């Protein structure tokens, strides 16, 4: 069930069925195939919803955002270009931007009470086999994160996982303006290099 995820250790074929499957489902969705989209939903909903939930936090709003994300993936499915990369990352990029936009607009009317330092994630991990693969990924990412300095990791997590702007991150961490963006960037570079991305 790892069609959307990192192929399990041992399977070194990067062009495994995982990627092809999602792309095929997107293509069929673009042609209006609702069954294909249902399959796509089942494959990626935990990953996408989990990320949205992590950023948005409020369960009701997270559900709304996730619903919007999926409707837009459906609508935009023909615009996905496999030559540019994986279907999963395309969908995650859409979802992250939308989640961040939601918390920022919600911020205008209602301050999130769950500020940095008091955050206590209470997310329920699902127990399907997909989650098992997800945990394998997570372990690698956790290990990579450990190569970051505490300061880099803190800034990166506040930015990506909590959706704060670099200016807000600087304020929250009592840093001079400009320092947070540097830490975010340095942290990402370390993460990228540790995970083996060359560019």
């Amino acid at each position: 069930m790892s069609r959307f995820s990192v192929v399990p250790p041992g399977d070194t074929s990067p062009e495994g069925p995982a990627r092809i499957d999602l792309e095929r489902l997107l293509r069929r969705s673009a042609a209006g195939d609702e069954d294909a989209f249902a399959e796509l939903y089942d494959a990626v909903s935990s990953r996408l919803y989990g990320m949205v939930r992590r950023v948005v936090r409020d369960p009701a709003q997270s559900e709304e955002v996730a619903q919007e994300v999926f409707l837009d993936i459906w609508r935009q499915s023909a615009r996905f270009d496999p030559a540019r990369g994986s279907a999963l990352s395309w969908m995650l990029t859409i979802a992250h931007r939308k989640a961040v936009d939601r918390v920022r607009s919600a911020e205008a009317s209602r301050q999130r009470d769950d500020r940095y330092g008091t955050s206590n994630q209470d997310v329920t991990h699902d127990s399907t086999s997909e989650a098992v693969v997800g945990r394998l990924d997570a372990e690698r990412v956790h290990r990579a994160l450990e190569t970051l300095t505490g300061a880099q990791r803190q800034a990166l997590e506040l930015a990506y996982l909590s959706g704060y702007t670099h200016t807000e991150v600087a304020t929250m961490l009592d840093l001079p303006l400009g320092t947070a963006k540097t830490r975010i960037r340095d942290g990402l570079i370390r993460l990228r290099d540790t995970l083996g991305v060359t560019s």
Partner: protein
Amino acid sequence: MSDDIHALSGAYAVDALDDSERAQFEQHLAGCAACQAEVASLAAAATTLSSLSDTAPPPGLRAKVLQGITTVRPLPPLVSGDGEPGDISTREPALSAPPQPAAAGPETAPDELAARRGGRHAETRRGSPLRWLVAAATAAILAIGGFAVWRSTDSGSTTPPTVAEQVRSAPDAKTSSDVALPGGGTATVVRSPSLGKAVVITSDLPSAPAGKVYQLWLQDPSGHFTSAGLMDASGDQTVVLQGDAADAQAAGITIEPAGGSEQPTSNPIAFFSFA
């Protein structure tokens, strides 16, 4: 461009810029191959963080989504070589990033980008699975301009007024007189001090010379010019100037090398005093 704007690559990759910075960086990104490559790889690295938060969605979501899609028609594919719909470039700056960064300048020719993408794929075939995932995500983000367009088509009928519309309809909006441009066409600026924003509106603007872009500037009371963004389209355009126009004493348009300049390198083709 300045080191400052390059340094925003990481924050951009994790959506940690505010709307104004985001628009400004996207304009820069369109002409900066180094930033495109860096943003792509950093955004890919960031995407892996989502593996830390796998969470089963509420059971009801699936039915809502599957019900929802029955009422939405998928968009047609973009035909290769097609421009984006013309109105997009005249929308808010956050939405006006050129759809394909590759088209921005000679140093980002499509062939080169394609080669880079190809190289990345080829290289990662030898790598670990995670390496592949990350690299695939990397390549995906090269479509970043596409995402900007995607966002713009997302607006639908519930879109609040754009910044440009707000400025033009602000009670204190002042419109400068039309300036005839040396190469043909006219430009005017509308500014709302209360909103702190200014909008340049062009009519029949000729294309910038090859390898050049139009760059917008705001002049502060001390006479210092700050870039207010690039404008690489022609014809009838409405572009919000980046930055705070509340205290600006003037705005200008110059022709600069692709990618823009830190300070004007030529005399303005149009200058609008707010005094």
